[in-house]
Each structure stands twice: as structure tokens, then as C-alpha cells.
């Protein structure tokens, strides 16, 4: 139990997808104009990460990894399908994003239209694939650890985009120098937020 909490907290604050790895920057920069939209996208990312990471964990453990197919019979002990990792992960992610899209369109048409093209683009959001690949790299012991890691990464990404959206709403009437308006100042804010998030670096859980 303690291990699960550690993984969860660590993936929110210390290994934050945005501030530690700079993953998923494209939608983070593009959709963070208003708090409500970015919170919607943030929840979608939490959902997708929380589902795809454990599913990909099962895939990795029982089908793709070296010797994972042994449950079919002893003659499969040497089969290594890991060259299929990327394509299988992407396929799962794309399917899940389709699911999310259908759910959002059904239950919140306003959010659906304000997210626009960025909702289907979650499928190619680097944070999502990154989550699955980090999961593979870190060799989690069981599926609950993978769930906790996926949810934690999603919450970390959610915090980042909600925080920057509130800041961007606040500075909307600021007299920012013309060349920096829009993306320029957003990059600077992201850097400053990164400094603030450095407070958690070095904590060993």
C-alpha cells in the first residue's frame, strides 16, 4: 500500500510529465487559454493515462515481453514480440481516445466543441505514450503499481495545465511586450513554474 502511494505522489510532483520530462507540451500550450477547457482536457488525460498504462502493462507482461507467451505452452518460451511494442501501445491508446471522445461528445457537447481537434490528438500526445513507455522501463511489479503510476502521471499533467491556464487568464490584461504575447510568455511561465516544481526534486520515496 505504501509503495502505491509513493509511486502516485512521485509521479505527480517529482517526475511530473510537464516539468520534469516536458512531455505533452503541444496540447499543454495550445489548450491552456481558459481554466474550464484545460480542466476538461486534464480529466481526459487522467482517464486515458489511467486506462492505457495498466492495459499496456498487461500486454507487456502477458503477450509482448520476452517469454511472456509461455502461458500458451512451453514451445513459446523463446518468443519475443517486443518489436511490436510501439505499434501495440499506440493502437491501445488510439482506441481509448476514441472511447473518451464518444463519452465527452455524449455527456458534454460544449466541452467537446471547445477542445476541438485536441481531443482526438490526445492519441498522439507524447505524455500518454510516454506514460506507457516509462511503465515499461521502470519494471513495475504488479498491475496496481501501473494503475497508480498512470493515474499519478495524469494528475501531474492535470495540475500543470490547470495552473498555467489560471495564470494565463490572470495575465490576459497584462501589458506583455508585443513579441512575447501568446506562446512566448507561456514558455516563460512554464519555465518559472518549473522552478517552483523543483521544490520536490530530490525527495526519495
Amino acid at each position, binding site marked *: 500500500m505504501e509503495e502505491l502511494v509513493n509511486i502516485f505522489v512521485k509521479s505527480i510532483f517529482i517526475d511530473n510529465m510537464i516539468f520534469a520530462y516536458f512531455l505533452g507540451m503541444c496540447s499543454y500550450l495550445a489548450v491552456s487559454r481558459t481554466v474550464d477547457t484545460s480542466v476538461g482536457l486534464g480529466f481526459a488525460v487522467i482517464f486515458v493515462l489511467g486506462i492505457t498504462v495498466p492495459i499496456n502493462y498487461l500486454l507487456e507482461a502477458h503477450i509482448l515481453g520476452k517469454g511472456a507467451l509461455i502461458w500458451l505452452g512451453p514451445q513459446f518460451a523463446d518468443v519475443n514480440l517486443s518489436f511490436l511494442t510501439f505499434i501495440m501501445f499506440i493502437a491501445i491508446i488510439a482506441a481509448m481516445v476514441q472511447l473518451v471522445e464518444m463519452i465527452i461528445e455524449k455527456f458534454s457537447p460544449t466541452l467537446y466543441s471547445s477542445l476541438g481537434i485536441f481531443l482526438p490528438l490526445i492519441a498522439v500526445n507524447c505524455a500518454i505514450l510516454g506514460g506507457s513507455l516509462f511503465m515499461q522501463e521502470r519494471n513495475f511489479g504488479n498491475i496496481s503499481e501501473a494503475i497508480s503510476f498512470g493515474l499519478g502521471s495524469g494528475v501531474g499533467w492535470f495540475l500543470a495545465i490547470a495552473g498555467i491556464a*489560471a495564470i494565463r487568464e490572470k495575465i490576459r490584461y497584462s501589458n506583455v511586450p508585443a513579441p512575447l504575447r501568446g506562446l512566448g510568455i507561456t514558455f516563460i511561465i512554464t519555465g*518559472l513554474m518549473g522552478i517552483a516544481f523543483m521544490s*520536490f526534486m530530490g525527495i526519495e520515496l
Partner: protein
Amino acid sequence: MKLLRNIVDSIRPHFGKGGKFAKFHRSFEAFDTFLFVQGNVTRRGSHIRDAIDMKRTMFFVIIALVPTLLFGMWNVGYQHYMAIGADVSFIDQIVYGLIKVLPIVVVSYASGLAVEFLFAELRDHEVNEGFLVSGMLIPLVLPVTTPLWMVAVATIFAVIIGKEVFGGTGMNILNPALLARAFLFFAYPAYMSGEVWISGTAEQLDGISGATSLAVLASNEGHMLPSLFDMFIGTIPGSIGETSTLAIILGASILVATGVGSLRIMLSVVAGGLFMGGVFNLFAVNDFMAVPAYYHLVMGGFAFGAVYMATDPVTASQTGIGKYIYGVMIGVITVLIRVVNPAYPEGMMLAILFMNVFAPLIDHYVVQSNIKRRLRRPVKAQVTI
């Protein structure tokens, strides 16, 4: 007074349209308004008639900082002579502190104001008053051994990246003084942490060092801790302004009495720190966790941050409930970083920066919930009728 007014008025035409120094009219304006309260008021938008404007508000903060500055100067001298074992008079200690501290203050003001005036002229906005406070806060949060060029680099970084790119005073999202310290902390860690806190001249002894009370605890040597009384009065090693809780309480009372600083934030930071300290006391597996919760209030920069940094009206939460959440979170995160994070013994700076980042989000949700609550009101009234 009259004479000064006349001089200012007599040179005014040179800075007007077509005058010799028309380019520098922003700088002229800044000095003029610094000396005298303006007769004219804003041209557009609503405003409140009040004798106090932003320059005077900022000045109250500077007055509130004077006790910590004076105590800091004396403490620098006191620590120095104590470390080399000399028994000298009070005056000598003050003079030594003055020689050490004054250059840092001058460099911070000079470099910061130079950038402010440059931007004011280039971008044609008024010179911002906010730097009067930041320029005083920056020296107070630095260890006295910081090289002067570092002070200048950090100040310029904080003013440009922390403030001017957002459009100047009132627009920044992070506290500029803390940003300057964080910049030095991450860019030159060897100078900012560790045990080089006591000033020492190079020819005498190479780096007289003394551990801060937080560094003592981080290395799990709780029995080496100075007494609670010493930490409260402030005769301990530390950054220039942070050591004396007594002087800081004096400053806090000035801030609260004049209505410049928010008592809500100060109290909730203290409450958050005490709460988290209490939680760690329950576990108490090492010296840092076992130390009584109220010790956290007098150690390191906790009191200084709570009074002067967290209450910054620009970067703090603006809403009433938001201020409580913001303050409590700062207290909790500070103690959390101090105790849990082995990389940094002090957490105040980073906790405030972290909550600065999330203050707009807190405000957003407080405002939204207020709107929702008020929308429900008339409906409720109808039902009761």
C-alpha cells in the same frame, strides 16, 4: 520642501515635449513622484480617492523591513567576531555589519533600478514602485557571503524575467525577490547552501563557517541546536534578514497596523506550519521530525517568508478564502520540504514560489464557487415564500 519643489518645477520644461531631455521624461516623472505626492490622478477607469498611493504603500513595507535590516547588520558583526573569538564593542559589531551588508543593498538597488528605468524609457510606462521593496528584500534573503556580482545577476534576472516581461509591477506571477534567490540557489548552489553562512574575510580565515539551525537538524544532530531563546532573538547564523523572529514580529505589526500586509495569510502560514510539524512529531523517527512544531516557526526563513514574502499582494491569492488556503498550503509544504526532502534543508522559498504558481487557480475556483452560491440564492428565497 518648498525649495525642492521649486527646483523640480524649474527643470520640468527640459523633460517636456520638445525639451532637451524629452527622452528621459519617465525617469524625471519617477523622481518627481518619489519626492512629492502627485496632484493629478488617473485619467481613465475608476479609482478610489485616498491619500496613500502605491509609492507610499511600498514605503510602509520598507519601514517594516528596517528592524530586520538593522538586526541583520548587527548579527553579521556579532557572528563574525564571535567566530574569530574577539571581544569587541557593540559599535564595532554594527560597523562591521554595515561594511558587509551595505554594498549588497546598494548593488541590489542599483542594478534593479537601472533595469527598471531602462524598461520604463524603452516601453514608455511609468517607473514601477514595486522594486523599492524587492530591492530591499533581495539582500535580506541572501547569505552575507554572496559575491556582489551574483547579487547583481540575480536581481537583473528577477526583474526582467520575473516582472518586466509580464508588464511590470502588479503583473508578475512569482515574487521577484524569491525568484532572485531561487535563481542563485539553483545556478550557484555551492554559494547558497551548505555551511558558508558566516562572513569571514579571505586574509584572516578561509571561510569561517557555521551551520544554520536547519542544517544542524538535517544532519541529524539535534543536540547541537541553539536554544529557543537564541533562535527567537536571532543571534544565530543565517541569511541577513531571516534570523531574528523578534524583529520580524515588530515588522509584522507595522504591516498589519497599516493594513499593508494580510494578517490572514500570516496566521494561516503559521497554522499550516504548526499542523505539519505536529503531524511529523507523531512519527518522530529522526531529529528533524522530533523537533517541537513551534521550533519550525523560529528556525530559518519561516517567519521572514510568512510576513514579508507570502503576503506580497501581487502574487498571493486575492480572495478571502483563497488567502487561507494559500497560507496553510505554504506552511504545510515548507515543513514538508524541510523534513522530507534531503536535498534542501530550507523549504520556505520554494513553498512560496510553488503556491504563487497556484494562487490564480485557487482564486479562480473561489470566485466560481461564490458565483454559484449567489446564483442559488434567489431560487432558495422563492421556495421559502
